[in-house]
């Protein structure tokens, strides 16, 4: 056969095969419903309640989410994915009225339609009630003329309702997207009686969820497993037959070592993998490992209150210390590459992140011990000798010794504490690391009050307040909301409820206020505000943002449909076994 003939044959075959695959009857077959999906989790991650309105932990909302969809979700690029919404939320031009239209095919378990009245009832009679004390009520309140008040929901028709504010808060729409309803026909029975509501079987067994989620509740044995059955009536599965697993199981493990052994043995379908084990799992043919960004970050807080080292109240000193701590080393040596340096409370995965404006302290070229020493000298501090070492001296001529307080139990935190000690020793600052239990940390080091006052200790009692115990640095893990990062004002605004380190800055306060006002309605303007806020905070360095960690998830390789990313589970109801 000549070369030309061969080419003709190949071209013909390719063309025929393309035609065949393009034909309607020959498209990729729909996935089949088969098998049980078992997700491994460690004990600390178990939900506390399925009666979600009472929950304070994140897992409870996650568990309920399998059976009850919110108004909308987000894909890995933070695009809105409609769930119970028939169309995206409409915001009035003045930014005060939100019009929400739900799908008409949403049903409760008794077959009745889920209406806008259920949503409005859930807000007015449950979330906003004084008898139930909803934990996240701040999201639904605004300060008008100095008085906190709730937003106003109102029914328009069976599938439409509005929520009206008196002040503009551009990020309020993200709160609305997360809204889930309680069935009014059941909830009215328990209204006003917190004990009865807490213990209501229907809510604790999720027996009302109808066609609202891809799965329905089957069994929950605490400390062991949470089992859900496929919901064939799921409103998003009408056309494609989703979901595709017979059962969805969350299995709790006491240790991550056994959980990962279970993945290796094929006893579970998916679980998180620790950085040191990623290479091992990546070599396994039966396992796919996906590395994804997370919302979690570590920070060193600098105590700028009166009972911390006075140097920490100077921006230049804080910058110098942050400059001396090498973030790349932390990423490579402690996280084994599964993290990225952090410079702001806005992660790089967020649409509001700006890489150009943040001051990248702790990463070359702004990671220099010598430059840090020069900055400390420029700030008015001298160096002296302690034995054969050069040490930083405080204003009284004594060597500076800082107390770093953190909690035990995490290898990462322990390694990081020791590395910080080592890094700061290189610029002549001795660090004593103190490990205390979480309850002690929050009560004795974070809670503060003005000495001699009758104040109740809180995490931010204003500029004159100090904690019971003295401290200089704390190392803690936090998490942020990439879509609405202004929630981090609790840490960085002067009146922020968790501003325990005493950072008070008018410019930062003004920017947070601006973002959450009419001026922030325009997304481009808001982006500019966030850029400026990130710049100011990274320059002020009230805390040293260390790293954003990356998560590693191992899956049996026969699980298909996964789209790795920060919101990896957004399409989980489409996942299936090959």
């Amino acid at each position, binding site marked *: 056969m000549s070369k030309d003939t061969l080419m003709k044959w190949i071209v013909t075959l390719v063309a025929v095969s393309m035609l065949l695959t393009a034909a309607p009857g020959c498209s990729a077959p729909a996935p089949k419903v088969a098998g049980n999906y078992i997700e491994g989790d460690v004990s600390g991650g178990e939900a506390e309640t399925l009666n979600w309105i009472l929950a304070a932990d994140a897992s409870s909302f996650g568990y309920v989410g399998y059976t009850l969809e919110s108004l909308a979700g987000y894909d890995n690029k933070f695009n809105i994915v409609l769930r119970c919404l028939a169309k995206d939320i409409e915001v009035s031009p003045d930014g005060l009225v939100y019009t929400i239209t739900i799908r008409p095919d949403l049903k409760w378990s008794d077959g009745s339609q889920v209406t806008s009245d259920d949503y409005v009832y859930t807000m007015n009679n449950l979330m906003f009630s004084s008898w*139930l004390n909803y934990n996240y*009520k701040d999201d639904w309140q605004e300060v008008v003329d100095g008085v906190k008040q709730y937003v106003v929901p109102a029914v328009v028709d069976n599938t439409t309702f509005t929520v009206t504010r008196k002040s503009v808060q551009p990020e309020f729409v993200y709160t609305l997207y997360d809204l889930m309803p309680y069935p009014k026909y059941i909830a009215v029975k328990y209204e006003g009686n917190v004990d009865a509501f807490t213990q209501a079987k229907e809510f604790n067994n999720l027996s009302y969820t109808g066609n609202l989620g891809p799965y329905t509740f089957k069994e929950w044995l605490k400390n062991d497993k949470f089992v859900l059955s496929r919901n064939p009536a799921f409103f998003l599965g009408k056309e494609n037959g989703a979901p595709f697993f017979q059962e969805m199981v969350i299995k709790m493990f*006491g240790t991550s070592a056994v959980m990962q052994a279970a993945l290796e043995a094929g006893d579970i379908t998916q679980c998180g993998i620790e950085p040191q084990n990623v290479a091992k799992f990546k070599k396994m043919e039966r396992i796919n490992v996906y590395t994804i960004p997370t919302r979690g970050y570590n920070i060193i807080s600098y105590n700028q209150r009166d009972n911390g080292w006075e140097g920490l109240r100077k921006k230049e000193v804080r910058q110098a210390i942050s400059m001396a701590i090498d973030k790349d080393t932390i990423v490579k040596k402690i996280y084994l590459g599964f993290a990225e340096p952090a410079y702001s409370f806005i992660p790089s995965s967020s649409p509001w992140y700006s890489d150009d404006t943040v001051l990248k302290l702790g990463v070359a070229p702004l990671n220099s011990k010598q430059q840090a020493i020069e900055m400390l000298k420029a700030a008015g501090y001298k160096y002296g000798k302690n034995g054969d070492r050069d040490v930083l001296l405080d204003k009284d001529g004594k060597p500076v010794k800082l107390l770093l307080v953190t909690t035990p139990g995490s290898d990462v935190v322990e390694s990081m504490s020791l590395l910080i000690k080592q890094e700061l020793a290189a610029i002549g600052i001795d660090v004593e690391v103190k490990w205390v239990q979480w309850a002690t940390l929050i009560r004795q080091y974070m809670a503060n009050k003005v000495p001699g006052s009758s104040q109740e200790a809180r995490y931010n009692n204003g500029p004159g307040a100090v904690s019971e115990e003295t401290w200089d640095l704390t190392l803690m893990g936090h998490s942020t909301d990439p879509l609405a990062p202004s929630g981090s004002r609790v840490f960085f605004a002067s009146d922020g*409820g968790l501003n325990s380190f005493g950072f008070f800055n008018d410019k930062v306060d003004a920017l947070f206020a601006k973002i959450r006002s009419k001026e922030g309605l325009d997304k481009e303007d808001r982006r500019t505000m966030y850029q400026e806020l990130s710049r100011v905070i990274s320059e002020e360095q009230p805390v040293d943002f260390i790293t954003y960690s990356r998560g590693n998830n191992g899956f049996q390789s026969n699980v298909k449909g996964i789209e790795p990313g920060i919101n990896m589970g957004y399409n989980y109801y489409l996942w299936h076994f090959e």
Partner: protein
Amino acid sequence: MRSYIIKRLLYSVIIAWGILTITFILLRVGPTSPVDRYILNIAAKGQDVESVRQAIEARYGLDKPIIEQYLLYMGNLLQGKWGWSFSASQPVMELIGSHWIYSFQLILLATIFAIILGVGLGILSAVNQNTKIDYATSIFSFIGISIPGFWLGLMLILVFAVYLGVFKTFYDTSYPIWSLENLRQLIMPVLALGTGELAGYVRYTRSAMLDNLRKEFVTTARAKGLSERTVIGKHVLRNAVLPLVTIIMFDLGSIVFGGAYLTEIVFGIPGLGQVSFNAIFANDYAVVIAVTLIGTFMVLFINLATDLIYTYLDPRIRYD
């Protein structure tokens, strides 16, 4: 005897009440709150931490004066109400009722395994003193005592579940309790929990047997022409078993009060050990008090049972 038992049971109630009261006070005056663990989650969502703390504490009545909380709790307890677990969202008794069986079966099987093999090997070792059997048994028991149960559990999982695939890596509650599959999946946990106990019993039994083998009544028994089996089984073992009962019952008490926790953790067995430890970390007061009370009663009952067994084994002991 009956009046002795009644008296002991009465004492038990008083002791349990005392422990309950102390536990209740210690939990309330301690520097912790059920809200502690949520603080960062609440803060990350931009909420006012203090108002959430107050709301949650009010919801579960933790904002009331401690004496009022105590009286309320005791009043409910006398009516058979053990309270509501806010970390598991169910009545405390329902939570315990659905988990106790997993601990019970594990402790029961591990204890039976340890007693039968431990006492058997101890006797074998003693009657074959200074032989290869004795040396082999001694080495086995030293290794058994030295190996931590949780490490043994992890190794068993690695070898028999991951590499050989003989067992599942975790305990599967889908199998009915009274099934062969369930018995089979308990083999590794029972080995992990029972091996340390077993090794100890080998040493104690050997030592107690050797003590008695040297006594004059044994020489007398042998001089009377009794068979060696009768001498060992009827005379020596009966005398040697008395201190063993104390040790075994003491061990049983320790296991009941948390000793099985690590085994439950390693094998993912949702027993009372896990329930109580998770409740402690969650500051779930109602559950902590309930499991403390149950543990107290179990230990008091085990002590009473030990005393009663003494009277059977040694007729010289009389309580009336």
